[in-house]
Protein backbone atom coordinates (compact mmCIF):
# COMPACT_ATOMS: atom_id res chain seq x y z
CA UNK A 1 0.00 0.00 0.00
CA UNK A 2 0.94 3.65 -0.17
CA UNK A 3 2.96 5.09 2.69
CA UNK A 4 1.06 6.68 5.56
CA UNK A 5 0.50 10.41 5.43
CA UNK A 6 1.78 11.75 8.73
CA UNK A 7 0.39 15.21 8.17
CA UNK A 8 -3.11 13.76 7.99
CA UNK A 9 -2.43 11.55 10.98
CA UNK A 10 -1.45 14.63 12.98
CA UNK A 11 -4.99 15.88 12.38
CA UNK A 12 -6.40 12.55 13.55
CA UNK A 13 -4.66 12.94 16.87
CA UNK A 14 -6.73 16.09 17.41
CA UNK A 15 -9.97 14.78 15.91
CA UNK A 16 -11.14 11.26 16.61
CA UNK A 17 -14.54 11.84 15.01
CA UNK A 18 -14.68 8.49 13.24
CA UNK A 19 -14.25 6.63 16.52
CA UNK A 20 -17.93 7.22 17.16
CA UNK A 21 -19.10 5.65 13.93
CA UNK A 22 -16.59 2.79 13.77
CA UNK A 23 -18.35 -0.53 14.43
CA UNK A 24 -15.27 -2.18 15.87
CA UNK A 25 -14.52 0.76 18.18
CA UNK A 26 -18.08 0.66 19.44
CA UNK A 27 -18.39 -3.08 19.83
CA UNK A 28 -15.02 -4.75 20.36
CA UNK A 29 -13.18 -4.30 23.60
CA UNK A 30 -9.68 -2.91 23.18
CA UNK A 31 -10.12 -1.84 19.56
CA UNK A 32 -8.96 1.76 19.33
CA UNK A 33 -7.10 3.07 16.27
CA UNK A 34 -6.55 6.35 18.13
CA UNK A 35 -3.99 4.57 20.31
CA UNK A 36 -2.36 3.02 17.25
CA UNK A 37 -2.11 6.40 15.53
CA UNK A 38 -0.57 7.93 18.63
CA UNK A 39 2.12 5.28 18.64
CA UNK A 40 2.67 5.57 14.89
CA UNK A 41 3.26 9.30 15.29
CA UNK A 42 5.69 8.63 18.14
CA UNK A 43 7.56 6.07 16.03
CA UNK A 44 6.42 3.24 18.27
CA UNK A 45 4.11 1.21 16.07
CA UNK A 46 6.10 -2.01 16.41
CA UNK A 47 4.12 -3.40 19.36
CA UNK A 48 0.90 -3.31 17.36
CA UNK A 49 2.11 -5.74 14.73
CA UNK A 50 1.46 -8.74 16.94
CA UNK A 51 -1.77 -7.29 18.34
CA UNK A 52 -4.99 -9.04 17.34
CA UNK A 53 -6.89 -5.77 17.07
CA UNK A 54 -5.18 -4.68 13.84
CA UNK A 55 -7.07 -7.51 12.13
CA UNK A 56 -10.38 -6.41 13.63
CA UNK A 57 -10.81 -3.50 11.25
CA UNK A 58 -13.80 -4.63 9.20
CA UNK A 59 -12.88 -2.44 6.23
CA UNK A 60 -16.42 -1.15 6.31
CA UNK A 61 -15.19 2.31 5.20
CA UNK A 62 -17.43 4.15 7.63
CA UNK A 63 -14.42 6.09 8.91
CA UNK A 64 -13.38 7.01 5.38
CA UNK A 65 -16.81 8.32 4.52
CA UNK A 66 -17.21 10.50 7.60
CA UNK A 67 -13.63 11.84 7.64
CA UNK A 68 -13.14 15.50 6.70
CA UNK A 69 -9.77 14.48 5.26
CA UNK A 70 -11.24 11.49 3.41
CA UNK A 71 -8.61 9.42 5.15
CA UNK A 72 -10.08 7.41 7.98
CA UNK A 73 -8.65 5.06 10.59
CA UNK A 74 -8.60 2.29 8.01
CA UNK A 75 -5.35 3.43 6.38
CA UNK A 76 -3.41 3.13 9.61
CA UNK A 77 -4.89 -0.26 10.41
CA UNK A 78 -4.17 -1.54 6.90
CA UNK A 79 -0.58 -0.29 7.21
CA UNK A 80 -0.17 -2.28 10.42
CA UNK A 81 -1.57 -5.41 8.79
CA UNK A 82 0.72 -4.98 5.81
CA UNK A 83 3.77 -4.73 8.06
CA UNK A 84 2.60 -7.66 10.17
CA UNK A 85 2.07 -9.77 7.05
CA UNK A 86 5.57 -8.91 5.83
CA UNK A 87 6.84 -10.45 9.05
CA UNK A 88 4.66 -13.49 8.61
CA UNK A 89 2.36 -12.56 11.46
CA UNK A 90 -1.09 -13.23 9.99
CA UNK A 91 -3.97 -15.13 11.58
CA UNK A 92 -3.81 -18.79 10.37
CA UNK A 93 -6.96 -18.44 8.30
CA UNK A 94 -5.55 -15.48 6.41
CA UNK A 95 -2.51 -17.56 5.55
CA UNK A 96 -4.71 -20.43 4.33
CA UNK A 97 -6.81 -18.08 2.21
CA UNK A 98 -3.71 -16.51 0.70
CA UNK A 99 -2.20 -19.90 -0.19
CA UNK A 100 -5.39 -20.92 -1.94
CA UNK A 101 -5.59 -17.61 -3.78
CA UNK A 102 -2.02 -17.85 -5.08
CA UNK A 103 -2.49 -21.47 -6.11
CA UNK A 104 -5.86 -21.18 -7.85
CA UNK A 105 -6.56 -17.47 -8.33
CA UNK A 106 -9.79 -18.08 -6.40
CA UNK A 107 -11.09 -18.76 -2.92
CA UNK A 108 -13.11 -21.80 -3.94
CA UNK A 109 -14.47 -23.56 -7.00
CA UNK A 110 -18.01 -24.10 -8.33
CA UNK A 111 -19.56 -27.33 -7.08
CA UNK A 112 -20.63 -29.40 -10.07
CA UNK A 113 -23.12 -31.84 -8.42
CA UNK A 114 -24.97 -29.02 -6.63
CA UNK A 115 -25.12 -27.08 -9.89
CA UNK A 116 -26.59 -30.04 -11.67
CA UNK A 117 -29.21 -30.54 -9.00
CA UNK A 118 -30.24 -26.90 -9.33
CA UNK A 119 -30.24 -27.15 -13.09
CA UNK A 120 -27.55 -24.51 -13.42
CA UNK A 121 -25.44 -24.32 -16.57
CA UNK A 122 -21.83 -25.38 -16.43
CA UNK A 123 -19.78 -22.66 -14.71
CA UNK A 124 -17.66 -20.38 -16.89
CA UNK A 125 -13.98 -21.28 -17.08
CA UNK A 126 -11.74 -19.86 -14.40
CA UNK A 127 -8.76 -17.74 -15.40
CA UNK A 128 -6.42 -19.67 -13.10
CA UNK A 129 -3.80 -20.51 -15.73
CA UNK A 130 -3.50 -16.96 -17.04
CA UNK A 131 -3.54 -15.70 -13.49
CA UNK A 132 -0.57 -17.87 -12.56
CA UNK A 133 1.31 -16.71 -15.61
CA UNK A 134 0.59 -13.13 -14.65
CA UNK A 135 1.75 -13.64 -11.06
CA UNK A 136 5.04 -15.05 -12.34
CA UNK A 137 5.63 -12.04 -14.58
CA UNK A 138 4.63 -9.70 -11.74
CA UNK A 139 7.04 -11.30 -9.31
CA UNK A 140 9.88 -11.07 -11.79
CA UNK A 141 9.04 -7.43 -12.47
CA UNK A 142 9.08 -6.69 -8.76
CA UNK A 143 12.73 -7.72 -8.51
CA UNK A 144 13.52 -4.86 -10.89
CA UNK A 145 14.14 -1.75 -8.73
CA UNK A 146 12.80 0.51 -11.48
CA UNK A 147 9.41 -1.21 -11.57
Amino acid at each position, binding site marked *: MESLNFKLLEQCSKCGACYHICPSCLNLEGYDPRAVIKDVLAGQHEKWLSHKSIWQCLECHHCL*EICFQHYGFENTMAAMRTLAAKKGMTPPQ*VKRGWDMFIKTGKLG*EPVAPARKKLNL*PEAAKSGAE*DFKKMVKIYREAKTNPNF
Partner: protein
Amino acid sequence: MKDFAIFWGCTIQTRFPFLEKSTRMVLEGFNLPYRDIDGFTCCPEKSLVNNIDHGLWILTAARNIALLDKAGVDLVSPCTGCASNLATVNSELHSNHKEKNKVNSILNEVGLEFKGNNKLRHLVPFFHDEVGIPAVKNKIIKPFNGMRIAIHYGCHMIRPSHALKNDDPLDPKKFDNLIRAMGAESVQYMTKLLCCGQGLDRIDQHENALHFARLKLKELRALKVDAMALCCPSCYLQFDNNQFLMEKEGEKFGIPIIYFTELLGLAMGYKPEDLGLDSHRIEATAFLEKWQRLNGDLSKTTELNRQLEAGFGIAQL
Protein backbone atom coordinates in the same frame (compact mmCIF):
# COMPACT_ATOMS: atom_id res chain seq x y z
CA MET B 1 -29.41 -1.65 -22.30
CA LYS B 2 -25.80 -2.62 -22.85
CA ASP B 3 -24.86 -6.30 -22.45
CA PHE B 4 -23.28 -7.15 -19.14
CA ALA B 5 -21.22 -9.96 -17.71
CA ILE B 6 -22.30 -11.31 -14.39
CA PHE B 7 -19.51 -11.58 -11.84
CA TRP B 8 -20.49 -14.35 -9.42
CA GLY B 9 -17.37 -14.26 -7.27
CA CYS B 10 -16.00 -17.18 -5.28
CA THR B 11 -18.42 -17.38 -2.37
CA ILE B 12 -21.70 -17.72 -4.25
CA GLN B 13 -20.42 -20.44 -6.58
CA THR B 14 -18.54 -22.30 -3.87
CA ARG B 15 -21.01 -22.19 -1.02
CA PHE B 16 -24.37 -20.90 -2.20
CA PRO B 17 -25.15 -22.03 -5.75
CA PHE B 18 -28.87 -21.54 -5.03
CA LEU B 19 -28.19 -17.80 -4.89
CA GLU B 20 -26.85 -18.07 -8.41
CA LYS B 21 -30.06 -19.86 -9.32
CA SER B 22 -32.40 -17.14 -8.07
CA THR B 23 -30.23 -14.46 -9.64
CA ARG B 24 -30.40 -16.15 -13.04
CA MET B 25 -34.15 -16.61 -12.69
CA VAL B 26 -34.84 -12.94 -12.11
CA LEU B 27 -32.37 -11.78 -14.78
CA GLU B 28 -34.15 -14.04 -17.24
CA GLY B 29 -37.56 -13.04 -15.96
CA PHE B 30 -36.69 -9.44 -16.80
CA ASN B 31 -35.13 -10.50 -20.09
CA LEU B 32 -31.88 -8.74 -19.28
CA PRO B 33 -28.88 -9.05 -21.62
CA TYR B 34 -26.50 -10.85 -19.27
CA ARG B 35 -23.86 -13.41 -20.05
CA ASP B 36 -21.16 -15.49 -18.44
CA ILE B 37 -17.65 -14.86 -19.65
CA ASP B 38 -14.66 -17.14 -19.21
CA GLY B 39 -11.50 -16.21 -17.40
CA PHE B 40 -12.49 -14.41 -14.21
CA THR B 41 -10.61 -15.14 -11.00
CA CYS B 42 -11.30 -13.96 -7.44
CA CYS B 43 -12.12 -10.22 -7.58
CA PRO B 44 -9.86 -10.38 -5.35
CA GLU B 45 -10.95 -10.06 -1.75
CA LYS B 46 -9.37 -6.86 -0.45
CA SER B 47 -9.08 -7.76 3.21
CA LEU B 48 -7.14 -10.87 2.25
CA VAL B 49 -4.97 -9.94 -0.73
CA ASN B 50 -4.39 -6.21 -0.25
CA ASN B 51 -2.88 -6.65 3.21
CA ILE B 52 -0.32 -9.08 1.90
CA ASP B 53 0.43 -7.73 -1.56
CA HIS B 54 -1.14 -4.46 -2.61
CA GLY B 55 0.32 -4.68 -6.11
CA LEU B 56 -1.17 -8.09 -6.73
CA TRP B 57 -4.54 -6.94 -5.43
CA ILE B 58 -4.57 -4.14 -7.99
CA LEU B 59 -3.27 -6.34 -10.76
CA THR B 60 -5.73 -9.19 -10.26
CA ALA B 61 -8.71 -6.86 -10.20
CA ALA B 62 -7.34 -4.99 -13.23
CA ARG B 63 -7.10 -8.30 -15.06
CA ASN B 64 -10.75 -9.08 -14.38
CA ILE B 65 -11.74 -5.61 -15.57
CA ALA B 66 -9.55 -5.98 -18.66
CA LEU B 67 -11.60 -9.07 -19.59
CA LEU B 68 -14.66 -6.79 -19.72
CA ASP B 69 -12.77 -4.32 -21.91
CA LYS B 70 -11.93 -7.17 -24.25
CA ALA B 71 -15.52 -8.42 -24.41
CA GLY B 72 -16.95 -4.89 -24.53
CA VAL B 73 -19.51 -5.49 -21.78
CA ASP B 74 -20.48 -3.91 -18.47
CA LEU B 75 -20.42 -5.87 -15.24
CA VAL B 76 -23.03 -6.62 -12.60
CA SER B 77 -22.34 -8.57 -9.43
CA PRO B 78 -24.73 -10.04 -6.85
CA CYS B 79 -21.85 -9.83 -4.33
CA THR B 80 -21.09 -6.53 -2.61
CA GLY B 81 -17.44 -7.44 -2.01
CA CYS B 82 -16.76 -8.13 -5.67
CA ALA B 83 -18.53 -4.96 -6.82
CA SER B 84 -16.72 -2.80 -4.29
CA ASN B 85 -13.26 -4.30 -4.83
CA LEU B 86 -13.44 -4.04 -8.60
CA ALA B 87 -14.82 -0.50 -8.48
CA THR B 88 -12.14 0.58 -6.00
CA VAL B 89 -9.30 -0.64 -8.19
CA ASN B 90 -10.99 0.79 -11.27
CA SER B 91 -11.16 4.22 -9.66
CA GLU B 92 -7.60 3.99 -8.32
CA LEU B 93 -6.21 3.18 -11.76
CA HIS B 94 -8.21 5.93 -13.43
CA SER B 95 -6.66 8.48 -11.08
CA ASN B 96 -3.13 7.11 -11.16
CA HIS B 97 -1.62 6.87 -14.62
CA LYS B 98 1.75 5.70 -13.44
CA GLU B 99 0.18 2.73 -11.72
CA LYS B 100 -2.07 2.08 -14.69
CA ASN B 101 0.94 1.93 -17.00
CA LYS B 102 2.71 -0.46 -14.65
CA VAL B 103 -0.36 -2.69 -14.54
CA ASN B 104 -0.68 -2.65 -18.31
CA SER B 105 2.99 -3.47 -18.83
CA ILE B 106 2.21 -6.79 -17.14
CA LEU B 107 -1.27 -7.35 -18.54
CA ASN B 108 0.05 -6.82 -22.07
CA GLU B 109 2.23 -9.85 -21.61
CA VAL B 110 -0.86 -12.00 -21.06
CA GLY B 111 -2.66 -10.40 -24.00
CA LEU B 112 -4.85 -7.98 -22.05
CA GLU B 113 -5.15 -4.28 -21.49
CA PHE B 114 -6.85 -2.41 -18.67
CA LYS B 115 -8.97 0.40 -20.04
CA GLY B 116 -11.72 0.48 -17.45
CA ASN B 117 -14.30 1.68 -19.95
CA ASN B 118 -17.25 -0.31 -18.68
CA LYS B 119 -19.66 0.16 -15.82
CA LEU B 120 -19.14 -1.99 -12.74
CA ARG B 121 -22.19 -2.30 -10.54
CA HIS B 122 -23.77 -4.21 -7.76
CA LEU B 123 -27.05 -5.92 -8.61
CA VAL B 124 -29.26 -3.87 -6.28
CA PRO B 125 -28.31 -0.37 -7.50
CA PHE B 126 -28.29 -1.83 -11.01
CA PHE B 127 -31.92 -2.88 -10.63
CA HIS B 128 -32.80 0.46 -9.16
CA ASP B 129 -31.04 2.62 -11.75
CA GLU B 130 -31.07 0.58 -14.95
CA VAL B 131 -34.12 -1.63 -14.74
CA GLY B 132 -35.97 1.03 -12.78
CA ILE B 133 -38.72 1.02 -10.19
CA PRO B 134 -41.64 1.19 -12.67
CA ALA B 135 -40.38 -1.87 -14.57
CA VAL B 136 -39.89 -3.71 -11.29
CA LYS B 137 -43.44 -2.85 -10.21
CA ASN B 138 -44.75 -4.11 -13.52
CA LYS B 139 -43.41 -7.58 -12.85
CA ILE B 140 -44.84 -7.94 -9.36
CA ILE B 141 -47.72 -10.36 -9.24
CA LYS B 142 -47.43 -11.54 -5.63
CA PRO B 143 -46.47 -8.46 -3.62
CA PHE B 144 -45.32 -8.32 -0.03
CA ASN B 145 -48.00 -5.94 1.18
CA GLY B 146 -48.33 -6.22 4.94
CA MET B 147 -44.88 -7.76 5.36
CA ARG B 148 -42.23 -6.07 7.51
CA ILE B 149 -38.77 -6.51 6.09
CA ALA B 150 -35.49 -5.24 7.55
CA ILE B 151 -32.85 -4.39 5.00
CA HIS B 152 -29.20 -5.05 5.60
CA TYR B 153 -27.36 -3.14 2.87
CA GLY B 154 -23.92 -4.62 3.45
CA CYS B 155 -21.08 -2.10 3.68
CA HIS B 156 -19.65 -2.78 0.26
CA MET B 157 -22.83 -2.23 -1.69
CA ILE B 158 -22.42 1.50 -1.05
CA ARG B 159 -18.90 2.11 0.27
CA PRO B 160 -16.36 3.40 -0.60
CA SER B 161 -18.65 5.89 -2.29
CA HIS B 162 -15.91 7.66 -4.26
CA ALA B 163 -15.50 4.42 -6.21
CA LEU B 164 -19.05 3.02 -6.28
CA LYS B 165 -20.89 6.33 -6.65
CA ASN B 166 -24.27 4.71 -6.39
CA ASP B 167 -26.05 5.86 -3.24
CA ASP B 168 -25.60 7.94 -0.11
CA PRO B 169 -22.90 6.00 1.78
CA LEU B 170 -24.29 6.93 5.18
CA ASP B 171 -27.99 7.12 4.34
CA PRO B 172 -28.68 4.83 1.38
CA LYS B 173 -32.14 4.63 -0.19
CA LYS B 174 -32.10 2.41 -3.26
CA PHE B 175 -32.56 -0.98 -1.64
CA ASP B 176 -35.36 0.55 0.44
CA ASN B 177 -37.04 1.83 -2.71
CA LEU B 178 -36.90 -1.62 -4.29
CA ILE B 179 -38.33 -3.35 -1.23
CA ARG B 180 -41.16 -0.84 -1.15
CA ALA B 181 -41.74 -1.37 -4.86
CA MET B 182 -42.42 -5.00 -3.96
CA GLY B 183 -45.05 -3.83 -1.53
CA ALA B 184 -43.25 -4.49 1.75
CA GLU B 185 -42.56 -2.12 4.57
CA SER B 186 -38.84 -1.41 4.94
CA VAL B 187 -38.50 -1.45 8.70
CA GLN B 188 -36.17 1.25 10.00
CA TYR B 189 -33.96 0.15 12.86
CA MET B 190 -30.98 1.38 14.89
CA THR B 191 -28.39 -1.09 13.64
CA LYS B 192 -29.51 -0.94 10.01
CA LEU B 193 -26.15 0.24 8.69
CA LEU B 194 -23.99 -1.71 11.11
CA CYS B 195 -21.40 -3.93 9.41
CA CYS B 196 -22.36 -7.63 9.48
CA GLY B 197 -19.03 -8.52 11.08
CA GLN B 198 -18.44 -11.67 9.02
CA GLY B 199 -14.85 -10.52 8.43
CA LEU B 200 -14.09 -11.54 12.01
CA ASP B 201 -14.75 -15.16 11.10
CA ARG B 202 -12.00 -14.89 8.51
CA ILE B 203 -9.38 -13.94 11.10
CA ASP B 204 -10.18 -16.77 13.52
CA GLN B 205 -12.38 -14.65 15.82
CA HIS B 206 -15.60 -16.61 15.70
CA GLU B 207 -16.95 -15.37 19.03
CA ASN B 208 -16.55 -11.77 17.90
CA ALA B 209 -18.29 -12.60 14.62
CA LEU B 210 -21.22 -14.03 16.60
CA HIS B 211 -21.23 -10.94 18.79
CA PHE B 212 -21.77 -8.79 15.69
CA ALA B 213 -24.48 -11.07 14.27
CA ARG B 214 -26.27 -10.92 17.61
CA LEU B 215 -26.35 -7.10 17.69
CA LYS B 216 -28.58 -6.99 14.65
CA LEU B 217 -30.56 -10.17 15.17
CA LYS B 218 -31.51 -9.19 18.71
CA GLU B 219 -32.86 -5.87 17.57
CA LEU B 220 -34.80 -7.46 14.73
CA ARG B 221 -36.23 -10.11 17.03
CA ALA B 222 -37.49 -7.36 19.35
CA LEU B 223 -39.01 -5.53 16.39
CA LYS B 224 -40.71 -8.74 15.24
CA VAL B 225 -39.75 -8.29 11.60
CA ASP B 226 -40.80 -10.97 9.12
CA ALA B 227 -37.38 -11.27 7.49
CA MET B 228 -34.05 -9.67 6.80
CA ALA B 229 -33.25 -8.86 3.18
CA LEU B 230 -29.72 -8.57 1.88
CA CYS B 231 -27.67 -9.12 -1.26
CA CYS B 232 -24.18 -10.25 -0.33
CA PRO B 233 -23.03 -13.87 0.15
CA SER B 234 -20.71 -12.88 2.97
CA CYS B 235 -23.47 -11.11 4.91
CA TYR B 236 -25.74 -14.04 4.07
CA LEU B 237 -23.21 -16.44 5.58
CA GLN B 238 -23.02 -14.30 8.69
CA PHE B 239 -26.76 -14.05 9.30
CA ASP B 240 -28.00 -17.39 8.03
CA ASN B 241 -25.21 -19.72 9.04
CA ASN B 242 -24.08 -18.00 12.22
CA GLN B 243 -27.68 -17.50 13.31
CA PHE B 244 -28.17 -21.23 12.79
CA LEU B 245 -25.10 -22.00 14.90
CA MET B 246 -26.40 -19.80 17.70
CA GLU B 247 -29.86 -21.37 17.48
CA LYS B 248 -28.26 -24.78 17.85
CA GLU B 249 -26.79 -23.53 21.11
CA GLY B 250 -30.26 -22.54 22.28
CA GLU B 251 -30.31 -18.86 21.35
CA LYS B 252 -33.47 -18.39 19.27
CA PHE B 253 -33.87 -15.54 16.81
CA GLY B 254 -36.02 -16.96 14.02
CA ILE B 255 -35.16 -14.29 11.45
CA PRO B 256 -35.22 -15.72 7.91
CA ILE B 257 -32.52 -14.23 5.69
CA ILE B 258 -33.85 -13.64 2.20
CA TYR B 259 -31.66 -12.66 -0.73
CA PHE B 260 -32.77 -9.73 -2.86
CA THR B 261 -33.15 -12.02 -5.87
CA GLU B 262 -35.24 -14.51 -3.89
CA LEU B 263 -37.56 -11.79 -2.71
CA LEU B 264 -37.94 -10.41 -6.19
CA GLY B 265 -38.38 -13.91 -7.62
CA LEU B 266 -41.15 -14.68 -5.13
CA ALA B 267 -42.91 -11.44 -5.95
CA MET B 268 -42.66 -12.34 -9.64
CA GLY B 269 -44.51 -15.57 -8.92
CA TYR B 270 -41.68 -18.12 -8.93
CA LYS B 271 -41.95 -21.02 -6.52
CA PRO B 272 -39.92 -20.83 -3.30
CA GLU B 273 -38.31 -24.21 -3.91
CA ASP B 274 -37.34 -23.32 -7.49
CA LEU B 275 -35.63 -20.22 -6.13
CA GLY B 276 -33.68 -22.34 -3.66
CA LEU B 277 -35.34 -21.11 -0.49
CA ASP B 278 -35.33 -24.66 0.84
CA SER B 279 -31.52 -24.50 0.96
CA HIS B 280 -31.45 -21.95 3.76
CA ARG B 281 -30.32 -22.99 7.20
CA ILE B 282 -32.82 -20.67 8.88
CA GLU B 283 -36.19 -21.79 7.64
CA ALA B 284 -38.35 -19.30 5.83
CA THR B 285 -41.58 -21.25 6.40
CA ALA B 286 -43.33 -18.75 8.67
CA PHE B 287 -42.36 -15.92 6.37
CA LEU B 288 -43.69 -17.73 3.31
CA GLU B 289 -46.92 -18.75 5.04
CA LYS B 290 -47.69 -15.24 6.14
CA TRP B 291 -46.96 -13.97 2.64
CA GLN B 292 -49.19 -16.63 1.03
CA ARG B 293 -51.95 -15.85 3.47
CA LEU B 294 -51.72 -12.11 2.88
CA ASN B 295 -51.72 -12.68 -0.85
CA GLY B 296 -54.83 -14.77 -0.45
CA ASP B 297 -56.39 -11.85 1.40
CA LEU B 298 -55.16 -9.48 -1.29
CA SER B 299 -56.84 -11.45 -4.02
CA LYS B 300 -60.08 -11.32 -2.04
CA THR B 301 -59.77 -7.55 -1.98
CA THR B 302 -59.14 -7.65 -5.67
CA GLU B 303 -62.31 -9.62 -6.24
CA LEU B 304 -64.22 -7.06 -4.20
CA ASN B 305 -62.65 -4.25 -6.16
CA ARG B 306 -63.42 -6.01 -9.41
CA GLN B 307 -67.08 -6.08 -8.51
CA LEU B 308 -66.98 -2.44 -7.46
CA GLU B 309 -65.19 -1.40 -10.62
CA ALA B 310 -67.47 -3.47 -12.81
CA GLY B 311 -70.46 -1.69 -11.34
CA PHE B 312 -69.01 1.78 -11.55
CA GLY B 313 -71.36 4.20 -13.27
CA ILE B 314 -73.72 1.57 -14.55
CA ALA B 315 -75.48 0.51 -11.41
CA GLN B 316 -78.38 -1.80 -12.26
CA LEU B 317 -81.23 -0.30 -10.33
